[in-house]
Protein backbone atom coordinates (compact mmCIF):
# COMPACT_ATOMS: atom_id res chain seq x y z
CA UNK A 1 0.00 0.00 0.00
CA UNK A 2 1.35 3.42 -0.95
CA UNK A 3 1.99 5.94 1.80
CA UNK A 4 -0.61 8.67 1.81
CA UNK A 5 -0.28 12.35 2.60
CA UNK A 6 -2.44 14.27 5.05
CA UNK A 7 -5.24 16.43 3.72
CA UNK A 8 -4.84 20.20 3.98
CA UNK A 9 -7.39 22.99 4.34
CA UNK A 10 -5.76 25.35 1.91
CA UNK A 11 -2.73 25.46 -0.36
CA UNK A 12 -0.90 27.87 1.89
CA UNK A 13 -0.35 24.90 4.22
CA UNK A 14 1.80 23.18 1.61
CA UNK A 15 5.47 22.78 2.52
CA UNK A 16 7.54 25.68 1.19
CA UNK A 17 9.41 23.67 -1.47
CA UNK A 18 6.19 22.23 -2.92
CA UNK A 19 4.52 25.62 -2.84
CA UNK A 20 7.39 27.18 -4.77
CA UNK A 21 7.68 24.41 -7.36
CA UNK A 22 3.93 24.40 -8.02
CA UNK A 23 3.88 28.20 -8.27
CA UNK A 24 6.23 27.81 -11.23
CA UNK A 25 3.51 25.73 -12.84
CA UNK A 26 0.99 28.52 -12.41
CA UNK A 27 -0.57 27.41 -9.11
CA UNK A 28 -1.50 30.24 -6.77
CA UNK A 29 -1.07 29.04 -3.15
CA UNK A 30 -3.11 31.94 -1.80
CA UNK A 31 -6.03 30.69 -3.92
CA UNK A 32 -6.77 34.33 -4.64
CA UNK A 33 -8.68 34.84 -7.89
CA UNK A 34 -9.33 31.12 -8.28
CA UNK A 35 -12.79 29.60 -8.37
CA UNK A 36 -11.55 26.42 -6.75
CA UNK A 37 -8.43 24.37 -6.08
CA UNK A 38 -7.35 20.77 -6.43
CA UNK A 39 -4.03 19.38 -5.29
CA UNK A 40 -2.74 15.85 -5.61
CA UNK A 41 0.61 15.06 -3.99
CA UNK A 42 2.07 11.80 -5.26
CA UNK A 43 -0.94 9.43 -4.99
CA UNK A 44 -2.94 11.45 -2.45
CA UNK A 45 -5.62 13.98 -3.15
CA UNK A 46 -4.81 16.44 -0.36
CA UNK A 47 -7.08 19.30 -1.33
CA UNK A 48 -10.23 19.53 -3.46
CA UNK A 49 -12.56 22.44 -2.99
CA UNK A 50 -14.80 24.75 -4.90
CA UNK A 51 -15.07 28.45 -4.17
CA UNK A 52 -18.10 29.04 -6.36
CA UNK A 53 -21.62 27.72 -6.46
CA UNK A 54 -22.31 25.52 -9.44
CA UNK A 55 -18.66 24.53 -9.76
CA UNK A 56 -17.62 21.06 -8.68
CA UNK A 57 -14.07 20.17 -7.68
CA UNK A 58 -13.55 16.61 -6.47
CA UNK A 59 -11.04 13.80 -6.47
CA UNK A 60 -12.11 11.39 -9.19
CA UNK A 61 -12.58 8.56 -6.66
CA UNK A 62 -15.02 10.65 -4.61
CA UNK A 63 -16.74 11.80 -7.76
CA UNK A 64 -17.28 8.21 -8.93
CA UNK A 65 -18.90 7.45 -5.56
CA UNK A 66 -21.00 10.59 -5.60
CA UNK A 67 -22.24 10.46 -9.18
CA UNK A 68 -23.25 7.05 -10.45
CA UNK A 69 -23.79 8.60 -13.91
CA UNK A 70 -20.08 9.42 -14.12
CA UNK A 71 -19.47 5.91 -15.39
CA UNK A 72 -21.02 7.12 -18.65
CA UNK A 73 -18.04 9.44 -19.05
CA UNK A 74 -15.23 7.54 -17.35
CA UNK A 75 -13.09 5.87 -20.07
CA UNK A 76 -15.68 6.85 -22.67
CA UNK A 77 -13.53 9.33 -24.58
CA UNK A 78 -10.13 7.70 -24.09
CA UNK A 79 -9.81 4.04 -25.02
CA UNK A 80 -8.30 2.20 -22.02
CA UNK A 81 -6.64 -0.30 -24.34
CA UNK A 82 -5.07 2.34 -26.57
CA UNK A 83 -1.52 1.70 -25.41
CA UNK A 84 0.60 0.49 -22.49
CA UNK A 85 0.15 3.82 -20.68
CA UNK A 86 -3.63 3.86 -20.81
CA UNK A 87 -3.61 0.22 -19.71
CA UNK A 88 -1.36 1.08 -16.78
CA UNK A 89 -3.72 3.89 -15.79
CA UNK A 90 -6.74 1.60 -16.07
CA UNK A 91 -5.21 -0.88 -13.64
CA UNK A 92 -4.26 1.78 -11.08
CA UNK A 93 -6.53 2.98 -8.24
CA UNK A 94 -8.61 5.98 -9.37
CA UNK A 95 -6.69 9.21 -8.75
CA UNK A 96 -6.85 12.59 -10.40
CA UNK A 97 -9.55 15.22 -10.52
CA UNK A 98 -13.15 15.77 -11.51
CA UNK A 99 -14.08 19.30 -12.50
CA UNK A 100 -17.52 20.34 -13.62
CA UNK A 101 -19.61 23.43 -14.17
CA UNK A 102 -23.38 23.03 -13.86
CA UNK A 103 -25.61 24.23 -16.72
CA UNK A 104 -25.35 27.95 -17.38
CA UNK A 105 -22.63 28.54 -14.78
CA UNK A 106 -19.56 30.53 -15.65
CA UNK A 107 -16.42 30.35 -13.51
CA UNK A 108 -15.61 33.83 -12.23
CA UNK A 109 -11.92 32.96 -11.97
CA UNK A 110 -10.04 29.93 -13.26
CA UNK A 111 -10.08 26.73 -11.27
CA UNK A 112 -6.60 25.51 -10.45
CA UNK A 113 -5.45 21.95 -10.22
CA UNK A 114 -2.01 20.59 -9.51
CA UNK A 115 -0.58 17.12 -9.90
CA UNK A 116 2.64 17.03 -7.95
CA UNK A 117 5.37 14.44 -7.58
CA UNK A 118 7.33 14.84 -4.37
CA UNK A 119 8.79 11.35 -4.01
CA UNK A 120 11.80 9.97 -5.82
CA UNK A 121 11.01 7.28 -8.39
CA UNK A 122 7.24 7.69 -8.09
CA UNK A 123 5.01 6.52 -10.95
CA UNK A 124 2.01 8.82 -10.81
CA UNK A 125 -1.09 7.72 -12.68
CA UNK A 126 -4.09 9.98 -12.80
CA UNK A 127 -7.42 10.01 -14.57
CA UNK A 128 -9.19 13.34 -14.90
CA UNK A 129 -12.71 14.02 -16.10
CA UNK A 130 -13.73 17.55 -16.96
CA UNK A 131 -17.30 18.43 -17.88
CA UNK A 132 -18.82 21.75 -18.89
CA UNK A 133 -22.58 21.25 -18.82
CA UNK A 134 -24.84 22.96 -21.34
CA UNK A 135 -24.30 26.70 -21.65
CA UNK A 136 -21.62 26.76 -18.95
CA UNK A 137 -18.11 28.15 -19.14
CA UNK A 138 -15.31 26.40 -17.34
CA UNK A 139 -11.86 27.87 -17.05
CA UNK A 140 -9.01 25.78 -15.71
CA UNK A 141 -5.34 26.28 -15.12
CA UNK A 142 -3.56 23.08 -14.34
CA UNK A 143 0.03 22.69 -13.30
CA UNK A 144 2.11 19.57 -13.15
CA UNK A 145 5.33 19.76 -11.20
CA UNK A 146 7.97 17.85 -9.26
CA UNK A 147 10.10 18.63 -6.27
CA UNK A 148 13.50 20.10 -7.11
CA UNK A 149 15.41 17.09 -5.78
CA UNK A 150 13.59 14.51 -7.94
CA UNK A 151 16.00 12.61 -10.20
CA UNK A 152 13.59 10.17 -11.75
CA UNK A 153 9.81 9.74 -11.83
CA UNK A 154 6.97 9.18 -14.26
CA UNK A 155 3.54 10.63 -14.85
CA UNK A 156 0.70 9.13 -16.82
CA UNK A 157 -2.32 11.38 -17.11
CA UNK A 158 -5.62 10.42 -18.69
CA UNK A 159 -7.87 13.42 -19.30
CA UNK A 160 -11.38 13.26 -20.72
CA UNK A 161 -13.08 16.51 -21.60
CA UNK A 162 -16.78 16.89 -22.37
CA UNK A 163 -17.97 20.21 -23.70
CA UNK A 164 -21.74 20.22 -23.89
CA UNK A 165 -24.00 22.26 -26.13
CA UNK A 166 -23.02 25.95 -26.24
CA UNK A 167 -20.56 25.42 -23.38
CA UNK A 168 -16.86 26.13 -23.25
CA UNK A 169 -13.74 24.83 -21.57
CA UNK A 170 -10.52 26.79 -21.52
CA UNK A 171 -7.80 24.51 -20.32
CA UNK A 172 -4.33 25.90 -19.75
CA UNK A 173 -1.68 23.43 -18.72
CA UNK A 174 1.75 24.38 -17.44
CA UNK A 175 4.36 21.67 -17.03
CA UNK A 176 7.25 22.12 -14.65
CA UNK A 177 9.02 18.76 -14.73
CA UNK A 178 12.66 17.79 -14.24
CA UNK A 179 15.37 16.16 -16.31
CA UNK A 180 14.65 12.63 -15.13
CA UNK A 181 10.87 12.63 -15.51
CA UNK A 182 8.93 10.75 -18.18
CA UNK A 183 5.53 12.17 -19.02
CA UNK A 184 2.71 10.55 -20.94
CA UNK A 185 -0.57 12.48 -20.98
CA UNK A 186 -3.38 10.89 -22.94
CA UNK A 187 -6.25 13.27 -23.58
CA UNK A 188 -9.42 13.30 -25.64
CA UNK A 189 -12.07 16.02 -25.85
CA UNK A 190 -15.66 15.77 -27.13
CA UNK A 191 -17.20 19.06 -28.17
CA UNK A 192 -20.92 19.29 -28.87
CA UNK A 193 -22.93 21.75 -30.94
CA UNK A 194 -21.85 25.36 -30.47
CA UNK A 195 -19.25 24.35 -27.90
CA UNK A 196 -15.72 25.70 -27.62
CA UNK A 197 -12.62 23.94 -26.38
CA UNK A 198 -9.51 26.02 -25.91
CA UNK A 199 -6.45 24.05 -25.05
CA UNK A 200 -3.20 25.80 -24.16
CA UNK A 201 0.03 24.15 -23.19
CA UNK A 202 3.30 25.46 -21.82
CA UNK A 203 6.39 23.41 -21.10
CA UNK A 204 9.26 25.60 -20.00
CA UNK A 205 11.45 23.21 -17.99
CA UNK A 206 13.60 20.24 -18.95
CA UNK A 207 11.98 16.81 -19.03
CA UNK A 208 13.41 13.40 -19.85
CA UNK A 209 10.73 12.59 -22.34
CA UNK A 210 7.29 13.95 -22.98
CA UNK A 211 4.71 12.68 -25.38
CA UNK A 212 1.48 14.61 -25.65
CA UNK A 213 -0.95 14.37 -28.52
CA UNK A 214 -4.52 15.13 -27.46
CA UNK A 215 -7.36 14.32 -29.83
CA UNK A 216 -10.21 16.79 -30.08
CA UNK A 217 -13.47 15.69 -31.67
CA UNK A 218 -15.74 18.45 -32.89
CA UNK A 219 -19.02 16.55 -32.92
CA UNK A 220 -21.75 19.17 -33.14
CA UNK A 221 -22.50 21.92 -35.61
CA UNK A 222 -20.49 25.08 -35.07
CA UNK A 223 -18.17 23.53 -32.47
CA UNK A 224 -14.79 25.22 -32.26
CA UNK A 225 -11.38 24.54 -30.87
CA UNK A 226 -8.18 26.47 -30.62
CA UNK A 227 -4.89 25.20 -29.30
CA UNK A 228 -1.82 27.14 -28.41
CA UNK A 229 1.46 25.76 -27.20
CA UNK A 230 4.85 27.05 -26.19
CA UNK A 231 7.49 24.44 -25.65
CA UNK A 232 11.12 24.93 -24.71
CA UNK A 233 13.53 22.07 -25.17
CA UNK A 234 16.45 22.15 -22.77
CA UNK A 235 19.29 19.80 -21.87
CA UNK A 236 18.58 16.35 -23.28
CA UNK A 237 14.81 16.76 -23.35
CA UNK A 238 12.89 14.70 -25.86
CA UNK A 239 9.57 16.34 -26.51
CA UNK A 240 6.93 15.01 -28.84
CA UNK A 241 3.90 17.25 -28.80
CA UNK A 242 0.98 18.00 -31.02
CA UNK A 243 -2.75 18.35 -31.40
CA UNK A 244 -5.09 16.28 -33.47
CA UNK A 245 -8.52 17.61 -34.37
CA UNK A 246 -11.35 15.70 -36.02
CA UNK A 247 -13.83 18.08 -37.60
CA UNK A 248 -16.95 15.96 -37.79
CA UNK A 249 -19.79 18.45 -38.16
CA UNK A 250 -20.63 21.35 -40.42
CA UNK A 251 -19.29 24.81 -39.62
CA UNK A 252 -16.82 23.49 -37.10
CA UNK A 253 -13.46 25.20 -36.94
CA UNK A 254 -10.03 24.48 -35.54
CA UNK A 255 -6.93 26.55 -35.11
CA UNK A 256 -3.67 25.41 -33.61
CA UNK A 257 -0.65 27.61 -33.00
CA UNK A 258 2.63 26.14 -31.80
CA UNK A 259 5.97 27.65 -30.85
CA UNK A 260 8.97 25.49 -30.12
CA UNK A 261 12.40 26.63 -28.98
CA UNK A 262 15.18 24.05 -28.90
CA UNK A 263 18.34 24.60 -26.86
CA UNK A 264 21.26 22.37 -25.93
CA UNK A 265 20.83 18.80 -27.20
CA UNK A 266 17.05 18.81 -27.03
CA UNK A 267 14.84 17.24 -29.63
CA UNK A 268 11.34 18.50 -30.33
CA UNK A 269 8.76 16.92 -32.58
CA UNK A 270 5.95 19.39 -33.23
CA UNK A 271 2.95 17.68 -34.72
CA UNK A 272 -0.43 18.76 -35.87
CA UNK A 273 -3.08 16.74 -37.63
CA UNK A 274 -6.32 18.26 -38.77
CA UNK A 275 -8.92 15.95 -40.23
CA UNK A 276 -11.82 17.46 -42.13
CA UNK A 277 -14.55 14.82 -42.35
CA UNK A 278 -17.44 16.95 -43.60
CA UNK A 279 -17.86 19.96 -45.90
CA UNK A 280 -17.94 23.56 -44.68
CA UNK A 281 -15.29 23.30 -42.03
CA UNK A 282 -12.35 25.60 -41.46
CA UNK A 283 -9.02 24.54 -40.01
CA UNK A 284 -5.63 26.16 -39.73
CA UNK A 285 -2.38 24.99 -38.25
CA UNK A 286 0.64 27.14 -37.56
CA UNK A 287 3.94 25.91 -36.25
CA UNK A 288 7.12 27.89 -35.81
CA UNK A 289 10.35 26.59 -34.36
CA UNK A 290 13.53 28.31 -33.29
CA UNK A 291 16.78 26.40 -32.95
CA UNK A 292 19.28 27.97 -30.59
CA UNK A 293 21.96 25.29 -30.58
CA UNK A 294 23.72 23.36 -33.35
CA UNK A 295 23.05 20.13 -31.42
CA UNK A 296 19.32 20.66 -31.04
CA UNK A 297 16.62 19.44 -33.40
CA UNK A 298 13.08 20.42 -34.30
CA UNK A 299 10.97 18.25 -36.53
CA UNK A 300 7.71 19.90 -37.54
CA UNK A 301 5.07 17.54 -38.89
CA UNK A 302 1.97 19.43 -39.96
CA UNK A 303 -0.70 17.27 -41.54
CA UNK A 304 -3.94 18.20 -43.22
CA UNK A 305 -6.38 15.49 -44.13
CA UNK A 306 -9.39 16.48 -46.19
CA UNK A 307 -12.03 13.82 -46.69
CA UNK A 308 -14.57 16.03 -48.45
CA UNK A 309 -14.82 18.81 -50.97
CA UNK A 310 -15.65 22.35 -50.01
CA UNK A 311 -13.57 22.75 -46.91
CA UNK A 312 -10.96 25.28 -45.97
CA UNK A 313 -7.77 23.83 -44.50
CA UNK A 314 -4.35 25.41 -44.35
CA UNK A 315 -1.08 25.26 -42.52
CA UNK A 316 2.16 27.16 -42.20
CA UNK A 317 5.33 25.88 -40.64
CA UNK A 318 8.74 27.47 -40.33
CA UNK A 319 11.78 26.23 -38.48
CA UNK A 320 15.18 27.88 -38.27
CA UNK A 321 17.72 29.72 -36.24
CA UNK A 322 17.53 33.44 -35.42
CA UNK A 323 18.21 35.39 -38.59
CA UNK A 324 21.38 37.47 -38.33
CA UNK A 325 19.74 40.30 -40.23
CA UNK A 326 17.11 40.60 -37.49
CA UNK A 327 19.82 40.85 -34.82
CA UNK A 328 21.69 43.46 -36.86
CA UNK A 329 18.50 45.39 -37.42
CA UNK A 330 17.92 45.71 -33.69
CA UNK A 331 21.61 46.47 -33.07
CA UNK A 332 21.38 49.29 -35.57
CA UNK A 333 18.70 50.76 -33.29
CA UNK A 334 21.05 50.57 -30.32
CA UNK A 335 20.61 47.14 -28.71
CA UNK A 336 23.63 44.97 -27.92
CA UNK A 337 23.84 41.58 -29.58
CA UNK A 338 22.58 39.80 -26.42
CA UNK A 339 19.74 42.26 -25.96
CA UNK A 340 18.76 41.87 -29.59
CA UNK A 341 18.78 38.06 -29.33
CA UNK A 342 16.62 38.16 -26.19
CA UNK A 343 14.20 40.58 -27.76
CA UNK A 344 13.79 38.30 -30.79
CA UNK A 345 13.19 35.21 -28.64
CA UNK A 346 10.73 37.12 -26.49
CA UNK A 347 8.93 38.28 -29.63
CA UNK A 348 8.92 34.76 -31.02
CA UNK A 349 7.24 33.46 -27.88
CA UNK A 350 4.74 36.28 -27.74
CA UNK A 351 1.86 34.40 -29.23
CA UNK A 352 -1.64 35.66 -29.13
CA UNK A 353 -3.14 32.63 -27.44
CA UNK A 354 -6.89 32.72 -27.43
CA UNK A 355 -8.97 32.39 -24.32
CA UNK A 356 -6.20 33.31 -21.93
CA UNK A 357 -7.31 36.04 -19.53
CA UNK A 358 -4.98 39.03 -19.49
CA UNK A 359 -3.82 38.32 -15.96
CA UNK A 360 -3.10 34.67 -16.62
CA UNK A 361 -1.27 35.62 -19.81
CA UNK A 362 0.87 38.03 -17.79
CA UNK A 363 1.65 35.25 -15.29
CA UNK A 364 2.66 32.89 -18.09
CA UNK A 365 4.75 35.59 -19.78
CA UNK A 366 6.54 36.16 -16.48
CA UNK A 367 7.25 32.44 -16.08
CA UNK A 368 8.53 32.28 -19.65
CA UNK A 369 10.78 35.27 -19.25
CA UNK A 370 12.14 34.03 -15.94
CA UNK A 371 12.86 30.63 -17.41
CA UNK A 372 14.58 32.12 -20.40
CA UNK A 373 16.41 34.88 -18.60
CA UNK A 374 14.94 37.41 -20.99
Amino acid sequence: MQASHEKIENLNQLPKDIKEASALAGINPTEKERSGSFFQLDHSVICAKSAQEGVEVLGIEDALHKHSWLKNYYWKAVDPDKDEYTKAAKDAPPRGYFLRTLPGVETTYPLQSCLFIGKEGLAQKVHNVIIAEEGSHLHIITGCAVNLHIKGASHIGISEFFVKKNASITFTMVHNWAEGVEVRPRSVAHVEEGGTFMNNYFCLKPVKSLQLYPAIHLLGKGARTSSGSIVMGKGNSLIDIGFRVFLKAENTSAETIARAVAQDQSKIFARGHLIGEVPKIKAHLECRGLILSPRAMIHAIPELEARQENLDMSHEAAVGKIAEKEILYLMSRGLSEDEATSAIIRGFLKVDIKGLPVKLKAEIDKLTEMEFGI
Partner: protein
Amino acid sequence: MTKEILKIENLQLEIGGKEILKGLNLTVRKGERTVLFGPNGAGKSSLLYSILGFPGYRPKAGRILFRGKEITDLPVNERVKLGVGVAFQSPPAIHGIKLREMLQICREGISAAQIKRTSKLMNMVEFLDRDVNLGFSGGEAKRAEILQILAQKPGFVMFDEPDSGVDLENVELIGKQIDAFLASHTGMVITHQGYILEFMRATRGCILYDGRIICTGDPKRILRAIRKKGYAGCAICKHPMKR
Protein backbone atom coordinates in the same frame (compact mmCIF):
# COMPACT_ATOMS: atom_id res chain seq x y z
CA MET B 1 36.14 75.01 -40.90
CA THR B 2 32.92 73.16 -40.17
CA LYS B 3 33.22 70.15 -37.94
CA GLU B 4 33.78 66.81 -39.58
CA ILE B 5 31.14 64.28 -38.63
CA LEU B 6 32.26 61.36 -40.75
CA LYS B 7 35.65 60.86 -42.31
CA ILE B 8 36.46 57.80 -44.35
CA GLU B 9 40.06 57.27 -45.39
CA ASN B 10 41.24 54.86 -48.05
CA LEU B 11 38.48 52.34 -47.32
CA GLN B 12 39.03 48.98 -48.98
CA LEU B 13 36.39 46.32 -48.75
CA GLU B 14 36.36 42.83 -50.14
CA ILE B 15 33.34 40.53 -50.10
CA GLY B 16 33.68 36.93 -51.12
CA GLY B 17 37.04 37.64 -52.76
CA LYS B 18 35.59 40.49 -54.82
CA GLU B 19 36.87 44.02 -54.37
CA ILE B 20 33.90 46.26 -53.63
CA LEU B 21 35.47 49.46 -52.29
CA LYS B 22 38.86 50.38 -53.68
CA GLY B 23 40.36 53.01 -51.42
CA LEU B 24 37.30 55.19 -50.91
CA ASN B 25 37.66 58.62 -49.33
CA LEU B 26 34.69 60.61 -48.11
CA THR B 27 34.19 63.39 -45.61
CA VAL B 28 30.82 64.56 -44.32
CA ARG B 29 30.68 67.81 -42.37
CA LYS B 30 28.14 68.90 -39.82
CA GLY B 31 24.90 70.10 -41.37
CA GLU B 32 25.70 68.74 -44.81
CA ARG B 33 23.03 67.01 -46.82
CA THR B 34 24.93 64.64 -49.03
CA VAL B 35 23.40 62.61 -51.81
CA LEU B 36 25.34 59.54 -52.79
CA PHE B 37 24.59 58.50 -56.35
CA GLY B 38 25.75 55.32 -57.97
CA PRO B 39 24.54 52.54 -60.25
CA ASN B 40 23.26 49.24 -58.91
CA GLY B 41 26.13 47.18 -57.61
CA ALA B 42 28.50 50.14 -57.21
CA GLY B 43 28.92 49.40 -53.50
CA LYS B 44 26.62 52.07 -52.03
CA SER B 45 24.88 49.73 -49.60
CA SER B 46 28.18 47.97 -48.84
CA LEU B 47 29.65 51.33 -47.87
CA LEU B 48 26.68 51.93 -45.59
CA TYR B 49 27.01 48.49 -43.93
CA SER B 50 30.71 49.12 -43.51
CA ILE B 51 30.05 52.45 -41.79
CA LEU B 52 27.55 50.63 -39.56
CA GLY B 53 30.05 47.87 -38.80
CA PHE B 54 28.05 44.87 -40.03
CA PRO B 55 29.97 41.60 -39.88
CA GLY B 56 31.14 40.65 -43.36
CA TYR B 57 31.62 44.33 -44.16
CA ARG B 58 34.71 44.98 -42.06
CA PRO B 59 37.28 46.80 -44.23
CA LYS B 60 40.50 45.17 -45.40
CA ALA B 61 42.26 48.51 -45.07
CA GLY B 62 41.50 52.12 -44.31
CA ARG B 63 39.69 53.68 -41.41
CA ILE B 64 36.42 55.30 -40.46
CA LEU B 65 36.28 58.22 -38.06
CA PHE B 66 33.11 59.51 -36.50
CA ARG B 67 33.31 62.91 -34.82
CA GLY B 68 37.06 62.49 -34.76
CA LYS B 69 36.97 59.08 -33.07
CA GLU B 70 38.03 55.96 -34.93
CA ILE B 71 35.10 53.52 -35.10
CA THR B 72 36.52 51.05 -37.64
CA ASP B 73 36.48 48.18 -35.13
CA LEU B 74 33.51 49.07 -32.95
CA PRO B 75 30.41 46.84 -32.80
CA VAL B 76 27.25 48.11 -34.48
CA ASN B 77 25.46 49.25 -31.33
CA GLU B 78 28.48 51.22 -30.09
CA ARG B 79 28.50 53.17 -33.35
CA VAL B 80 24.78 53.75 -33.00
CA LYS B 81 25.30 55.09 -29.49
CA LEU B 82 27.81 57.59 -30.88
CA GLY B 83 25.12 58.88 -33.21
CA VAL B 84 25.16 56.80 -36.40
CA GLY B 85 21.68 56.06 -37.70
CA VAL B 86 20.26 54.29 -40.70
CA ALA B 87 16.99 53.91 -42.55
CA PHE B 88 17.27 50.60 -44.38
CA GLN B 89 16.26 49.90 -47.93
CA SER B 90 14.61 46.55 -47.14
CA PRO B 91 14.32 46.08 -43.38
CA PRO B 92 13.55 42.59 -42.07
CA ALA B 93 10.20 41.71 -40.48
CA ILE B 94 10.40 40.56 -36.88
CA HIS B 95 7.62 38.46 -35.36
CA GLY B 96 6.41 39.61 -31.97
CA ILE B 97 8.14 43.00 -31.94
CA LYS B 98 5.69 45.80 -32.57
CA LEU B 99 6.56 49.00 -34.37
CA ARG B 100 5.73 50.79 -31.11
CA GLU B 101 8.39 48.72 -29.31
CA MET B 102 10.90 49.55 -32.02
CA LEU B 103 10.31 53.23 -31.30
CA GLN B 104 10.88 52.54 -27.61
CA ILE B 105 14.13 50.77 -28.50
CA CYS B 106 15.15 53.69 -30.72
CA ARG B 107 14.59 56.17 -27.92
CA GLU B 108 14.46 54.93 -24.36
CA GLY B 109 11.77 56.69 -22.40
CA ILE B 110 9.94 58.03 -25.44
CA SER B 111 6.52 59.22 -24.32
CA ALA B 112 3.21 57.98 -25.69
CA ALA B 113 2.52 61.51 -26.88
CA GLN B 114 5.82 61.64 -28.81
CA ILE B 115 5.07 58.27 -30.38
CA LYS B 116 1.65 59.46 -31.44
CA ARG B 117 2.91 62.75 -32.82
CA THR B 118 5.72 61.29 -34.94
CA SER B 119 3.55 58.39 -36.12
CA LYS B 120 0.97 60.89 -37.35
CA LEU B 121 3.65 62.71 -39.31
CA MET B 122 4.57 59.47 -41.09
CA ASN B 123 0.97 58.35 -41.42
CA MET B 124 1.80 55.22 -39.42
CA VAL B 125 -0.50 55.40 -36.37
CA GLU B 126 -2.45 52.31 -37.37
CA PHE B 127 0.77 50.31 -37.76
CA LEU B 128 2.09 50.93 -34.24
CA ASP B 129 0.70 47.71 -32.81
CA ARG B 130 1.63 45.52 -35.73
CA ASP B 131 4.75 43.38 -35.85
CA VAL B 132 7.42 45.55 -37.39
CA ASN B 133 7.60 45.26 -41.19
CA LEU B 134 5.49 42.10 -41.21
CA GLY B 135 3.24 42.35 -44.23
CA PHE B 136 4.14 46.03 -44.74
CA SER B 137 4.12 47.25 -48.34
CA GLY B 138 7.27 48.85 -49.78
CA GLY B 139 6.08 52.34 -48.94
CA GLU B 140 4.90 51.36 -45.46
CA ALA B 141 8.25 49.79 -44.60
CA LYS B 142 10.08 52.94 -45.76
CA ARG B 143 7.76 55.14 -43.74
CA ALA B 144 8.34 52.91 -40.70
CA GLU B 145 12.09 53.36 -41.18
CA ILE B 146 11.84 57.15 -41.31
CA LEU B 147 9.53 57.05 -38.30
CA GLN B 148 12.18 55.17 -36.32
CA ILE B 149 14.77 57.77 -37.34
CA LEU B 150 12.46 60.57 -36.18
CA ALA B 151 12.24 58.83 -32.79
CA GLN B 152 15.94 58.00 -32.57
CA LYS B 153 17.23 61.39 -33.77
CA PRO B 154 20.76 60.24 -34.61
CA GLY B 155 23.37 62.93 -35.23
CA PHE B 156 24.18 61.43 -38.62
CA VAL B 157 21.70 59.40 -40.66
CA MET B 158 22.12 57.34 -43.77
CA PHE B 159 18.97 56.83 -45.82
CA ASP B 160 19.40 53.83 -48.08
CA GLU B 161 17.36 54.19 -51.28
CA PRO B 162 14.37 55.84 -49.59
CA ASP B 163 12.70 56.28 -52.99
CA SER B 164 13.10 52.79 -54.46
CA GLY B 165 9.99 50.68 -54.88
CA VAL B 166 7.78 53.43 -53.49
CA ASP B 167 4.86 55.15 -55.22
CA LEU B 168 5.01 58.87 -55.92
CA GLU B 169 2.75 59.85 -53.05
CA ASN B 170 5.00 58.06 -50.57
CA VAL B 171 8.19 59.45 -52.12
CA GLU B 172 6.78 62.93 -51.53
CA LEU B 173 5.88 62.20 -47.90
CA ILE B 174 9.22 60.52 -47.22
CA GLY B 175 11.22 63.22 -49.04
CA LYS B 176 9.53 66.04 -47.16
CA GLN B 177 10.06 64.38 -43.79
CA ILE B 178 13.73 63.70 -44.54
CA ASP B 179 14.06 67.33 -45.61
CA ALA B 180 12.51 68.58 -42.38
CA PHE B 181 14.63 66.22 -40.28
CA LEU B 182 17.85 67.33 -41.97
CA ALA B 183 17.14 70.94 -41.03
CA SER B 184 18.71 70.06 -37.69
CA HIS B 185 20.71 66.89 -38.46
CA THR B 186 23.42 65.71 -40.80
CA GLY B 187 22.52 63.10 -43.36
CA MET B 188 23.46 61.14 -46.41
CA VAL B 189 20.85 59.91 -48.85
CA ILE B 190 21.72 57.00 -51.07
CA THR B 191 19.85 56.86 -54.35
CA HIS B 192 20.47 55.59 -57.81
CA GLN B 193 17.60 57.30 -59.55
CA GLY B 194 17.37 60.54 -57.61
CA TYR B 195 13.55 60.91 -57.50
CA ILE B 196 13.73 61.87 -53.86
CA LEU B 197 15.57 65.10 -54.77
CA GLU B 198 12.33 66.54 -56.07
CA PHE B 199 11.07 66.69 -52.51
CA MET B 200 14.19 67.39 -50.46
CA ARG B 201 17.09 69.77 -50.62
CA ALA B 202 20.63 68.47 -50.80
CA THR B 203 23.82 70.49 -50.45
CA ARG B 204 26.24 68.12 -52.08
CA GLY B 205 26.24 65.18 -54.45
CA CYS B 206 28.79 62.41 -54.83
CA ILE B 207 29.03 59.61 -57.35
CA LEU B 208 30.21 56.21 -56.17
CA TYR B 209 31.41 54.25 -59.14
CA ASP B 210 33.63 51.19 -59.30
CA GLY B 211 34.49 51.35 -55.60
CA ARG B 212 35.52 54.99 -55.47
CA ILE B 213 33.99 58.45 -55.25
CA ILE B 214 34.57 59.76 -58.78
CA CYS B 215 32.75 63.08 -58.58
CA THR B 216 31.63 65.53 -55.92
CA GLY B 217 29.68 68.74 -56.40
CA ASP B 218 26.30 70.37 -56.82
CA PRO B 219 23.71 67.58 -56.51
CA LYS B 220 21.33 68.90 -59.18
CA ARG B 221 24.12 69.31 -61.68
CA ILE B 222 25.38 65.82 -60.94
CA LEU B 223 21.90 64.37 -61.33
CA ARG B 224 21.48 66.17 -64.67
CA ALA B 225 24.82 64.79 -65.83
CA ILE B 226 23.88 61.27 -64.77
CA ARG B 227 20.52 61.53 -66.56
CA LYS B 228 22.24 62.82 -69.66
CA LYS B 229 25.32 60.62 -69.87
CA GLY B 230 24.52 57.72 -67.60
CA TYR B 231 26.87 56.51 -64.88
CA ALA B 232 29.21 55.01 -67.47
CA GLY B 233 29.46 58.46 -69.07
CA CYS B 234 30.29 60.01 -65.70
CA ALA B 235 33.05 57.45 -65.26
CA ILE B 236 34.88 58.76 -68.32
CA CYS B 237 34.11 62.43 -67.68
CA LYS B 238 37.14 64.67 -68.21
CA HIS B 239 35.87 67.35 -65.82
CA PRO B 240 34.81 65.74 -62.59
CA MET B 241 33.67 68.29 -60.02
CA LYS B 242 35.46 68.53 -56.72
CA ARG B 243 34.24 70.28 -53.65
